[in-house]
């Protein structure tokens, strides 16, 4: 077992999958010699060559659309959007085409492909290098949407995504890339798509989170235990679509209180789906209002340090929200 950070785990997952299956290839902007702007594909070009690690023009629709064509042909493409903020030119391909091929062809075409997207703020990226835009895609039937929060999950989920016969959107919070190191199982470590994980058991309330929010929620839980004697259960959703309702509802049944946390803005955000599911299916277990903690209702993360800090959801905001909910 090696100690890796998240970006290293992602690179390792791609390397192992490319080695295992020659149909797997990577395409995107600067993924070749440079190894990607975040270094996620570093070393792959030297190992696998021009064709399997393919630098594309600055054309996101082409990256997604050509990956879809290649997937239909029989390859297993991993497309990289340089930033999730730049995925919109590919929106037509992802939403009109990639998500619907299987259904519209009555199951006769499949699009086994992965789109990796660095998302999220806290890195001085401002409005156009910080977006958490997962909700556009979690709202789209036909896509699977994954957002890991640990190096082991990043590796295991990416490997599962590559092997999945459906299109998987893989959201990587860029602040987590080099945030911490943790043990990652060697070899064929697969984490199933569609399974949440109880990252820390507790009994007073449940905190539902994903991506970078996992680390923030765990830190908040530590503070709550130490300072308030509140035992918060932290549930890392890991996969947003399909949502692991069994684990979500099981946690609410234990704690009776639910706090849903994400960095994307609240209105119509993914937390609304989690909250509605809990309200509909766990009503009799609830002993407090299902609560959402989310990014503010502004069009993007503002640039200046003070403004960005105001925007970001972190341990302190989670502790505040959890204290209010626990006291209810």
């Amino acid at each position, binding site marked *: 077992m090696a100690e890796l950070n998240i970006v290293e785990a992602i690179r390792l997952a791609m390397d192992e999958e490319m080695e295992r299956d020659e149909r797997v290839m990577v395409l995107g902007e600067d993924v070749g010699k440079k190894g990607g702007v975040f270094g996620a594909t570093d070393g792959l070009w030297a190992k696998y060559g021009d064709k399997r690690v393919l630098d594309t023009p600055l054309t996101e629709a082409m990256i997604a659309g*050509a990956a879809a*064509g290649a997937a239909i042909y029989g390859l297993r493409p991993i497309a990289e959007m340089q930033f999730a903020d730049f995925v919109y030119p590919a929106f037509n391909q992802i939403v009109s085409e990639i998500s619907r091929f299987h259904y519209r062809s009555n199951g006769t075409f499949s699009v086994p492909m992965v789109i990796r997207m660095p998302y999220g703020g806290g890195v001085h990226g401002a409005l156009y290098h910080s977006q958490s835009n997962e909700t556009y895609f979690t709202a789209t039937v036909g896509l699977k949407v994954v957002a890991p929060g640990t190096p082991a999950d990043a590796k295991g989920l990416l490997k599962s995504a590559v092997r999945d016969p459906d299109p998987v959107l893989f959201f990587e919070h860029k602040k987590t890339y080099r945030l911490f190191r943790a043990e990652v199982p060697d070899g064929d470590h697969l984490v199933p798509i569609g399974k949440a994980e109880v990252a820390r058991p507790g009994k007073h309330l449940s905190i539902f989170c994903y991506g970078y929010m996992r680390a923030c929620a765990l830190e908040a839980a530590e503070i709550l235990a130490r300072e308030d004697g509140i035992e918060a259960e932290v549930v890392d959703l890991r996969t947003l679509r399909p949502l692991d309702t069994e684990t979500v509802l099981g946690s609410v049944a234990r704690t009776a209180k639910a706090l849903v946390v994400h960095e994307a803005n609240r209105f119509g955000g993914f937390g609304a789906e989690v909250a509605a599911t809990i309200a509909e299916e766990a009503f009799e277990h609830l002993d407090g209002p299902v609560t959402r903690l989310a990014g503010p209702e502004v069009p993007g993360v503002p640039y200046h340090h003070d403004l960005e800090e105001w925007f970001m959801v972190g341990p302190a905001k989670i502790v505040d929200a959890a204290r209010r909910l626990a006291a209810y």
Partner: protein
Amino acid sequence: MAKTETRQRHVELGLSDDDVLAMYRQMLLARAVDERMWLMQRAGKIAFIISGQGHEGAQVGITWPMRRNQDWMAPYYRSIASALTFGMSVEDIITAHLAKGDDVSSGGRQMPGHYGGAPYNIVSLSSPVGTQVLHAVGIAMAAWIRGDDVVAMTSYGEGTSNQGEIHEAMNFAGVHNLPVIFVCENNGYAISVPLEKQVAGGNVAARAQGYGFPGVVVDGSDPLACYAAAREAHDRARRGDGPTLIEARVVRLTSHSSDDDQRRYRDPAEVEALKEQDPLARFSQQLREMGLLADERDEQLRAEVKAEVNEASKRAEARPEPSVAEAHQRVYANPIPGGGTATTAPAGTEGH
């Protein structure tokens, strides 16, 4: 004189007398299917029809060099003749338009005109125009990566040629010399908007020069000219020399669709004059000049085609309707049982 020249022309292209007659028959067949579906639409059996009438010469000629079960096609909504030439049966096409449950394109899920068929290497088509061009480029990219002897062909109208995705597709195909043939069927109208209001410069093929590959204009009502251009493009792609853009100048003999009435925006005299460019009439005349077709043979071919369409229609109409109980199935290739709201079937229906 004309007779000798035409005869030499198809022989020079490596086509036998039987080949050109088969091409003619294929055009007749596509027209007969198209006309039958308009009848079915008017009879209330099909909700909507979008026609390929006037495009048959280009589609048959251009698809003719494509190798079935080896090459790939990403067609568009007027591609009846292309789909037939690439392997779809008349029954497949009518079944799809009737939205029957075992329709090979979509099992009754898609509107008429959304050609596709996994068994034929015909990529399932959607409605946003131009998206399929990137799929063809992706297939060509995959074949290039794998070193496979495969050519991808994609078609679209001149209205679609202005979409950004077409630019992204052609640029990428040009960068890597991918084995793809772009076919723009230019009928002069994007629904109601004429060419001069949609295409700057008035010439779609000229754009290829900017991407570093050939763009050729062909008379889309001349199937042999279309065949010649496509065969050259196909050879070029197989040699690894890259893409070709073929702009086939065709005529749209019908309104845009069954929901449109082109008399609102086209001069009746203009529409009447199109009939002189009808590829069927033109090719029939050519074949007569070549001494390959006389009235008797023509009538025989038309009768054969009519019988084929009659039989196929009967069989298609007898096919089962789609089952509502299956409408929630085949959303994901690998659903996760009990995996949550994304894949859970409504109460009373089966899951995936």
